């Protein structure tokens, strides 16, 4: 039996939610366009997007120079953020982000933006492809080999770092009885043999498998014996009976904030078992009723930021986005640890302020000029204009009420002073833009 499919109305609100969960939110007109295709057509378009087109102004730093993502600090973050903002393949980019979190590698440990961007390209290439191929390539990926000491894992002195995490975080999960401490040690032996060279000018380079560093002896892993090597280690994890449930549950959690029912999980596992393909599992999740009728999700910070830029068609005009990303709790290429970002704790008083600053940064490029103020305006008019600035996001009644109350009071403060009557509404409009973008409505989708 397949996974349940959403049969309710598929209008603009549903298409918007889909674009938030499967991408970075709608550009003007995008949700309406998607809604016309119906659910199936919309999901088909997202999962089969064709060649990528980058739409909108090209990224540059504050002095107008092009980004240098391989070399300059923070430009890696800005480069990817730009791609999220301008891409015509939002789901591919979103899945690239999923794999960055799933196989979380930090440049903190790798120390090479080039290696990180090469890994990023690997995630993008397999965004909706085969998890089998992805796991094999990640295991042999230079950034990962540096990050989890794959090239320090040598016959005679095995290093357990990658072997443990590939089971705990990438394929099987902790505390499920899927593997023992002995399996960790034996996996480490199976994974021996990778090496690379280092030079002052080139850094880490020449990653390759050196069979003289590989432990060719017999290993016993998951109660099976064999002279397993790194390919064997990957295969054993993929064929482990607890892998499909781990895979389906984890993938689901990126799109829906409540766990899947047993029936849904069984259906997703069945789809996945048939060739380890990612795309059909993602498609089933995107068509699931839980996505449209279930609770909202807190947007990951980078999705919130990219979404605001997409809404107003603004490009990357500064590399401030890198440190702002860090304040929001998500600097790309620097996940906090190998387990990735904690999607259940995006919001706290520090990261909320980070999101506030992200909006502040956008608005400092789009300042309203009080000198060009028009004649006296009502609170409702000002609020309507602020909403238009963000391309008419839907607000809850409670939020709309508070914003209107603020606008009324703040405009009334102007009293009878002529210049205040002109300038206060302008300030109020700017403040409303800020408040709308940080409201609980826009932090969640």
């Amino acid at each position, binding site marked *: 039996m397949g996974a349940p499919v959403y049969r309710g109305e598929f209008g603009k609100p549903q298409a918007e939610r889909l674009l938030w969960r499967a991408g970075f939110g709608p550009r003007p007109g995008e949700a309406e366009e998607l809604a016309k295709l119906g659910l199936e057509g919309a999901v088909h378009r997202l999962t089969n997007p064709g060649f990528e087109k980058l739409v909108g102004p090209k990224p540059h730093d*504050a002095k107008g120079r092009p980004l240098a993502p391989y070399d300059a*600090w923070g430009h890696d973050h800005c480069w990817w953020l730009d791609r999220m903002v301008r891409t015509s393949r939002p789901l591919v980019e979103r899945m690239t982000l999923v794999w960055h979190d799933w196989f979380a590698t930090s440049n*903190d440990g790798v*120390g*090479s933006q080039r290696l990180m961007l090469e890994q990023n390209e690997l995630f993008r290439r397999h965004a909706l492809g085969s998890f089998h191929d992805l796991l094999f390539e990640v295991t042999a990926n230079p950034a990962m080999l540096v990050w989890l*000491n794959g*090239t*320090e894992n*040598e016959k005679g*002195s095995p*290093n*357990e*770092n990658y072997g*443990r995490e590939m089971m705990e*975080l990438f394929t099987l999960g*902790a*505390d499920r009885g899927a593997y023992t*401490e002995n399996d*960790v040690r034996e996996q480490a032996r199976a994974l021996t043999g990778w090496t690379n060279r*280092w030079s002052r000018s080139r*850094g*880490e380079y020449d990653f390759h498998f050196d069979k003289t560093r590989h432990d060719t002896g017999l290993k016993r892993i998951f109660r099976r014996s064999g002279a397993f090597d790194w390919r064997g280690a990957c295969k054993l994890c993929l064929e482990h009976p607890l892998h499909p449930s781990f895979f389906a549950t984890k993938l689901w959690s990126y799109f829906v904030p409540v766990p899947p029912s047993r029936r849904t999980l069984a259906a997703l596992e069945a789809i996945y078992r048939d060739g380890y393909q990612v795309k059909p599992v993602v498609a089933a999740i995107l068509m699931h009723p839980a996505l449209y009728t279930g*609770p909202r999700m*807190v947007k990951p910070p980078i999705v919130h930021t990219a979404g605001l830029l997409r809404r107003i068609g603004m490009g990357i005009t500064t*590399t*401030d986005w*890198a*440190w702002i990303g*860090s*304040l929001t709790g998500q*600097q790309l290429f620097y996940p*906090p*640890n190998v*387990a990735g970002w904690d999607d259940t*704790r995006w*919001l*706290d*008083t*520090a990261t*909320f*302020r980070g999101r506030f600053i992200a909006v*502040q*940064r956008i608005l*400092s490029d789009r*300042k*309203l000029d*009080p000198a060009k103020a028009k004649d006296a305006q009502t609170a409702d008019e000002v609020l309507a204009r602020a909403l238009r600035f963000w391309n008419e996001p839907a607000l*809850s009644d*409670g939020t709309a009420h508070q914003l209107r109350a603020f606008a009324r009071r*703040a405009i009334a*403060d102007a009293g009878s002073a002529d210049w205040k009557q002109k300038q*206060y509404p302008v*300030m109020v409009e700017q*403040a409303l833009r800020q*408040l709308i973008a*940080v*409201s*609980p*409505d826009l932090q*969640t989708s």
Partner: protein
Amino acid sequence: MTGPGRIVCDECTRAEALRAVAGRGLPAIEPGMPVPAGTGLTRRGFVVRSAGLALAVYGAGRLGLFDEGIAAAAAQRSSKILVTVFMGGGADSLSLLYPEGDPLYHQLRPTLAVDGGTQFSEDARLYWHPGLAPLAQLHAEGKVTVFPSIGYDHPDQSHFTSRHFWEVGATDTRLLTGWLGRYLDAAGTNDNPLQGLSLTGSLSPALATARVPVAAIDGPGQYDFWVPGVWGTVETRMLDALGALGSVRSSDPSFRTAARVTAQSSTLRRQLEPFAKDPPTKPATPYPTGDSFPQQLAGVAAMIGAGLPLRCVALDASGAYDTHAGQVAALDPALQMTGASLYAFQRDLEERGVADRVLTLVWSEFGRRAKENGSGTDHGAAGTAFLIGTRAAGTQVGEFPGLANGLDDDGNLKPTADFRGVYGALLEQWLSFDAARVIPDAKKFQRPTLVK
């Protein structure tokens, strides 16, 4: 092929340094640093950096002198504070206090054995890592309790599971609130986010509450909210409206989370506003430079000195401790910076006359494998912890079990103290609170004397 060479690569070091600062709040103004243009975070905002703090003086024009933050502070001025410092990744106990006097040490650590440290006065087998010499000094003054082998039964060697156990105060993977969070839920108040303060970049899991607000900040003087082109009464109204957005009701859990955090942020802003207006006095003891950890400790000391109502504080130690490879190159600077920072913090508290109100617990999720793997060590079991403060009992709890008989079947150090007993003792003896209300099965764990 690798070795320390990769770590000293000039470009990486510089990028590292920049990132380390930028990752912790307002970036420093240093050559090559991208200036945070357009946000109003101008140099003016950094003029009092000399205090070790990035203070946002541009917020100085705002009103709000004696609001609830200061009022609450006045009421709680004498309350005890527990600071926790996490050495993330599993700090190697056989390096922190290394068993030079154990005949098996060099056999298990042929290349990684530490030397050059001073003997630990309570156990002739152990020596302080040279980087921890500042802690040895504080220990000699009776201000450090050492836990040479602390952990729990049936050790879990996953970073995330073991850390989770320590954060929630139980070997239970399903518990969602932190041990300090549960304490604050019972003993804290509804209007004081500063009672549980993280300076770890995001909220520390140990401080996760179910009921009362807690806070995460990058530094005390930076917590402002403003919008370009908005000032005067409109700005005041806008800040009120921000708090009002936090009161919007919803049946949706994520929406409610977003609203709650909005409200907490608004309260926290008001609490910290007077602090930002009035820069703290410069600490008498200089803190180390070039890292965010000492800056954050300086910020905590300044906040305590200013009377802000802190109760539980969580920070991350300098450095990374998951030393699977290149251990010496990673551990030496990490311990040096951490040790020197903790020392400066203690002296700062003493200078400010608040040292009797603060205990600092330094911990890690586990220790590392006794046998080295080449250039590093894999995940182990029991680790080392420290409790620092003028009121710390100052005598070791548990003892080093020795390498001949003190290793378990996996070759990892066996615990001689249980972290849950330590938490229980801190709750009872320091925070004067019933441990059974916070730590599941608290009675099962022996509670050592930790406070004098």
